[in-house]
């Protein structure tokens, strides 16, 4: 019975992830082909695509999307590997995760705004420079950051945001018991043969773990090529990246621009696909070259440079995060703050009062949605994972399933969300909460799945076998043995789901039609507003909200363990994963 329930859940999860995305795709492909009855376009043709490619800037937009997306992913992978190679055997690893976690849980919009606070010509670093050189007016632009025409600042911001995620993924693979045993063995052999730790990492560890982190990296790549918030806030606009242009066309006053937007959305899918292919190609070439290096017998792997980079990147994150924390906190309570002073003239709570007054309702919505979405996706994911163990599918089907879990992450959001709105207008048009709930689920479930799947793989199945041999039903094994022992991972996954739900901008805005304001939609609206100080307050609230989830994740297991008394597995589990998730 229980096994069947879990099987049904598994199908529910599949449908939940695929139906909205497919419906959304249909909703953009039809207008892209010129069919959009609302504005009197009733015939199918390729005219819209022809119009799109006759635009002067379209190739430049495509190039920018490719360059920033692929470039940032490669930079982030390289950075992540440098850091891991430098620290993977050191006790510092846990601390490093702690350092990087603010950027991990920070919503993209907030991160982009925060970078603007630090790096713009009137930002903190410019203030420090001006203070040192006695300049009274900020420079009037023309520098690289922000808005440079090549998209370097976008690339930079995206890499900063992706790097912690890749490290998290790599670490979670590396700390699976089996993998850990294998890697420790590898490293021992490598060291005995005289390979340096860095060389061991690149020649033995990376090849062993890469296959397992590839899918999340591909998701990151798709996300980077199609992200809207970061290029919108930091990117060039002559022209912009394709995703930003799509959003502007969809929102254009001239409603016939939606045809163009839809066709551009289809092109965006192609761009992301090309980025994926290029990435896989680069992977192939690296593998090929790497194979030669594997047997070359060199015991070093430019150790000095790698370690220098690893340490430098961490140092950079520390400086950057301190700078951002300082300037955002200070702006949120600043009165007048003329350039280039490092401190404001005075402090006030006015901005907080303004924001808090306006935020009561959005905060309530955010929490309601987040808790509902995260809780139900956690239940779905747990049942699904359990069904994988109770009724293992064929390897082929299992692969297909994993891929479909990543489906929403592999299709650019700007491409299907607009189509989804059209679809939602056809079905249950006034069920706004339901639609927003679904739109959030599509993004939350994959991350919760990723996070829980790791814990499930790490679970020592001998506990389950012992319990079963004592006559426990599968449900009892699941509920009384597995769940308690994975409690910590469960709450962390729940907190992660909460954080992802909190940070959704486009899905919330489009699915609810703006009728369900959340903290993130308010924050992005305020970023388009005129008050730097109010924006600072919003950035802080956005950053703190997901942290609350993780604090709960810390406290709950401790309390539960205390009340349960002698639950050794849970304790042990916690101590191990504390290093892993670090948040």
């Amino acid at each position, binding site marked *: 019975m229980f096994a069947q*329930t879990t099987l049904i859940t598994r199908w529910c999860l599949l449908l939940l992830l695929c139906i909205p995305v497919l419906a959304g795709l249909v909703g953009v492909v039809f207008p892209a082909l010129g069919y959009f009855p609302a504005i009197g376009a009733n015939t199918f043709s390729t005219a819209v695509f022809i119009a799109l490619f006759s635009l002067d800037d379209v190739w430049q937009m495509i190039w920018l999307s490719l360059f920033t997306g692929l470039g940032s992913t490669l930079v982030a992978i390289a950075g992540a590997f440098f850091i891991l190679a430098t620290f993977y055997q050191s006790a510092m690893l846990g601390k490093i995760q702690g350092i990087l976690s603010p950027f991990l849980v920070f919503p993209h919009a907030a991160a982009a705004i925060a970078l603007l606070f630090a790096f713009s010509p009137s930002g903190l670093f410019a203030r420090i420079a001006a203070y040192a050189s006695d300049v009274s007016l900020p420079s009037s632009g023309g520098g690289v950051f922000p808005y440079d025409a090549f998209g370097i600042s976008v690339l930079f911001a995206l890499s900063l945001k992706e790097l912690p995620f890749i490290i998290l993924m790599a670490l979670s693979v590396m700390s699976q018991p089996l993998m850990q045993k294998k890697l420790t063995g590898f490293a021992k052999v490598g060291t005995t043969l005289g390979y340096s730790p860095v060389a061991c990492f690149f020649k033995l560890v990376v090849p062993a773990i890469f296959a397992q982190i590839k899918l999340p990296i591909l998701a990151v790549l798709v996300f980077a090529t199609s992200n809207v918030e970061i290029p919108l806030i930091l990117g060039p606009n002559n022209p912009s990246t394709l995703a930003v242009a799509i959003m502007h066309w969809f929102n254009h006053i001239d409603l016939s621009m939606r045809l163009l937007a839809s066709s551009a959305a289809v092109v965006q899918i192609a761009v992301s696909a090309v980025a994926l292919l290029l990435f896989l190609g680069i992977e192939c070439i690296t593998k090929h070259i790497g194979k030669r290096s594997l047997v070359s017998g060199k015991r070093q792997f430019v150790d000095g440079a790698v370690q220098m980079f690893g340490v430098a990147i961490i140092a950079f994150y520390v400086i950057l995060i301190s700078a951002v924390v300082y300037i955002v906190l200070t702006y949120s309570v600043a009165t007048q703050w003329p350039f280039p002073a490092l401190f404001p003239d005075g402090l006030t709570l006015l901005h907080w009062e303004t924001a808090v007054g306006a935020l*009561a309702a959005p905060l309530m919505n955010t929490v309601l949605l987040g808790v509902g979405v995260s809780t139900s996706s956690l239940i779905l994911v747990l049942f699904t994972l359990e069904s994988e163990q109770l009724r293992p599918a064929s390897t082929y089907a299992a692969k297909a399933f994993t891929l479909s879990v990543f489906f929403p992450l592999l299709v650019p959001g700007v491409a299907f969300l607009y189509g989804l709105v059209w679809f939602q207008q056809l079905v249950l048009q006034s069920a706004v909460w339901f639609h927003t709930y679904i739109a959030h689920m599509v993004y939350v479930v994959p991350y919760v799945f990723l996070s829980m799947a790791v814990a499930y793989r790490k679970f020592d199945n001998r506990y389950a076998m012992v319990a079963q041999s004592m006559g426990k039903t599968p449900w009892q094994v699941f509920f009384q043995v597995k769940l308690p022992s994975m409690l910590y991972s469960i709450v962390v996954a729940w907190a992660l789901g909460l954080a992802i739900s909190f940070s959704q901008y486009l899905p919330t805005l489009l699915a609810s039609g703006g009728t369900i304001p959340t903290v993130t939609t308010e924050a992005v609206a305020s970023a388009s507003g005129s008050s730097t100080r109010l924006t600072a307050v919003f950035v802080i609230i956005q950053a703190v909200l997901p942290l609350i989830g993780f604090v709960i994740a810390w406290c709950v297991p401790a309390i539960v363990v205390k009340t349960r008394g002698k639950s050794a597995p849970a304790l042990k589990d916690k101590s191990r994963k504390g290093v892993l998730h670090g948040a």
Partner: protein
Amino acid sequence: MIRNSLAGFLLPTTALSLSTNTLPLPVSAFLGPWLLLALLVVAPLSLAAVSNSAGQSTSQSTTADGGTRKVPIVRFHAWGGSAQVNGYLQWVAEQVKQRFNIELQHIKLADTSDAVSRVLAEKAAGNHHNGSVDLIWINGENFAAMKKHNLLSRAWVEELENFALTNPRYNTAMTTDFGEATLGMEAPWGKASMVFYYRSAHMKSLGLMPPNTIRDLLRFSQKAPGHFTYPVPSDYLGISFIKFAVIVLNREHQSLFYQPVTAESLQTVLPALWAYLDALHPTMWQAGNYMLRQASQLQRLVSTGELTLAFSFTASEIPSAVTRFDLPEDVRTYVMQDGSLANVHFIGLTYNSSNTEAAKTIVNFLLSPEAQAEKQKLAVWGDDTVLDMSILPKGQQALFENDTIHDSALDKSQQTMLLPEPHASWTDALRDAWYARYGARY
């Protein structure tokens, strides 16, 4: 039970009643797999059911008599980037709740066209009676687009008692939106005219005077490159700057701007504009390579000091931004001798609103002398009233008397020449020509 949770979803402040619906989820995790799965399936469905019945109940309430408990909800979609406007609408929401027992929800838009697209999407999907947008704050081409696609309710404005106070018969600006007849689809709400503002301390350290004509502006920008910019023409203030420039640079062709644009008239006025902008762009902020997408960012950049000179359509937002520390104290506001572009902004009622009566009540309140006077207060918003002072009784006129004058505020004692907005067709023509010449800039 359903009513309880319904109230929770619609009025988040009273969401305590929700506990029955959401809390069981985590708790039930200890009850058993079946209950759990049932809840899992039921939770989203009940959400759907709840929000479905929400839509219906609001529409029922408009037909129900005043004695029923149900509170009609009116969703007012309005740009939400200004703290003053948001604050004023909060005040309005409290007032209409008290007076008429209507719930006014301000849906804060980053871009008004989002709401226009929303209504269009509803029309496309056949939702003709239960739209999610009731009222919308618009003018210019958002109005032209909604008018063209029949997304607005017709001839409802004349029914409003307070509309007569704008003296529409003599004051055609109240029924004309950028040269387009409003046909009673939208009610006037406020008036705006373009002002410039600058950092006096920066001017001093640059050794320059604030420019007084559009030619002066170019000379200023050449002497101090990077201290001025304007937003791209898809932004309201951006296209306004271009209109201002083109009108002022073509003094001898003034009459052309107040007729629908033709290819010929466009070709007559463009050369002067291009010559001017070609010279201006390289001297602007970011060397003109990056231009702002939204006008509100102008204020932000003046505040951080990256810009020295900027402009706005709401003179009152300058001093009130200074008092909220969003602009420094050395900011001064003035009007160029070339004149000041002026227009009216409106509130539209969508064709598929389910709460038309409540929405009309709200608009009528917004046009009342009391609400208009509150809006005109510098400390609140400072938006000029649309009411005709000459036909108001003395007592009500007194409501509008000015509060204390701020150093950064516009000196209203000085005579300013108002330049009416060109016919709406010019907006698109100028914008398209600009984009064709200077690139897409999305």
